[in-house]
């Protein structure tokens, strides 16, 4: 369970302080797949950074599995996928996937078994000895995901992980992500600007406002599982959810078009 309690984030700078996160409190239950959407600059990624302990909130407190997150220390059993490529270019696919297990000094034989299973899960058999630069962007994404899954995270934070991919690759990865989540039942928090993606994947969607952000809408997505990522878009439930959320989110996008100075000038 993740508890966000009065989270606020202000970036101080000489010219203009940026009040990114206004005040966010919510509870995310174990095994939930939550998406966070909102206009750019609303602190979606910052929120994930704060949960992972990469960044310190200006005010408020985060608890992961009952323990308060200490900035500078990553909570245990937490996985994080960045938008940027984070595979190690000098290691082969196999050595990348086994990285987290090596950190834990797992015995060689266990590593080999686990890596073989993960390669199968990620459809990367035959690419064990390939270096990342020889893979496509989608495959590198999968390697990063497998690196994280090797550590068996209970909480998976995904920071716009599919943003840089083409639609085809993205949809395939959606499918894989859903099946992984249904097998392993981690808690997943996905930050995205793509509402289609959010509705397709998640159980619950949190819409943030323009900065300083607060929660505008906290919507349960009642589309039943198993979902087919290709056909779910055509269902009336999908359209219904999309419409409800878009009404709120679209208005925020429209309002966010105001000159940035004006928004900042309010504080």
């Amino acid at each position, binding site marked *: 369970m993740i508890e966000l309690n009065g989270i606020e984030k202000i970036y101080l700078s000489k010219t203009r302080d940026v009040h990114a996160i206004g005040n966010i409190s919510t509870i995310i239950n174990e095994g939930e797949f939550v998406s966070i959407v909102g206009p750019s600059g609303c602190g979606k990624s910052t929120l994930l950074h704060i949960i992972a302990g990469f960044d310190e909130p200006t005010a408020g407190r985060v608890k992961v599995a009952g323990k308060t997150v200490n900035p500078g220390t990553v909570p245990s059993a937490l996985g994080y996928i960045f938008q940027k490529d*984070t595979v190690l270019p000098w290691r082969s696919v196999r050595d990348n996937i086994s990285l987290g297990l090596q950190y834990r000094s797992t015995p060689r034989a266990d590593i080999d078994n686990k890596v073989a299973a993960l390669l199968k899960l990620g459809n990367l058999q035959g690419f064990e000895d390939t270096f990342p630069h020889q893979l496509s962007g989608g495959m590198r994404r999968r390697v990063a995901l497998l*690196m994280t899954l090797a550590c068996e995270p209970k909480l998976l934070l995904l920071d716009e992980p599919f943003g840089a991919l083409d639609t085809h690759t993205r949809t395939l990865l959606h499918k894989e992500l859903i099946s992984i989540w249904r097998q392993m039942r981690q808690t997943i928090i996905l930050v995205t600007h793509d509402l289609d993606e959010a509705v397709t994947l998640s159980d619950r969607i949190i819409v943030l406002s323009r900065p300083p952000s607060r929660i505008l809408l906290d919507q349960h997505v009642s589309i039943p599982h198993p979902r087919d990522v290709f056909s779910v878009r055509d269902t009336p439930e999908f359209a219904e959810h999309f419409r409800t959320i878009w009404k709120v989110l679209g208005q925020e996008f429209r309002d966010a078009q105001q000159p940035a100075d004006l928004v900042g000038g309010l504080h």
Partner: protein
Amino acid sequence: MADVQALSLSREDRLRTVARKAFWRRFRLAFWQVGLVGLAVAIWEIGTRIPFLSKNFNVFDPFFVSRPSAIILRLYDWTFGAKAGFLWPHLEATLIATLIGLVLSVSTGFVVGLLFSQKRELAIVLNPFIVALNSLPRIAFVPLITMIFGLGLASKVVTAWFIVFFLVFFNTFKGGMAIEKELIEFCRTLGANERQITRSVRIPNALGWTFTALPNAVSFSLIGVVIAEFVGSTTGMGYLIITSLATLNSADMFAALTVLSLVGVVLVSLFKLLERRLMRWSPEFREQG
């Protein structure tokens, strides 16, 4: 079935065409390289034999510039001819000093560069001194180095180190600073502690930047050794050059220079190969890898 065969044949043919094109391209480039050398040698040889040129222009006077045929004869003398074996001790002295200087400067440059990139405060405190040292005309120190370390191997190695260290240091330092913070944060989520991050991320990342400095480092190491041999030594290719200059023996000098440039080409090519091998994970070296 027949269709498949035809298709596969044409594929073979196409592969052959590609290979043939690549071969001729390499041949053409090699032809130009050999041609350029041949042209320069021909101008040199013929120019020094035309009285009008050699009498009126010092650059064509064989007293100063010798001539290719004489240089080749001298090289033969030094290796297998009249003074057989004369060259080897000098060549060996220069090569050994170059390689020791290279190993020392690359290892210290790597360690210090990595350390500075990780300890921000250390880098800020010491940076002005490094920049000041780097801006000095380092050649000016060679006589002093020779006085301190004597006429042997030590002063050559120290000179080479003094010249190459900064090159490696700055490259490694830049690489150590350029590492993406997401990469480190990601490894933290995989459970790495600081020591593990240094070993699995920071060191390999910085090493990549160090390796790309290797071909330049070996050139500069050779230059450093030869300069030290100019200033004061009793062996080495630089010693050969400076003594032949003192005795006004231009064939000796150009013979030594020829050997030196061949050594440079061979060493740099070897280290380019080594770099490519070590950096085969990098997209920059994908085509050759």
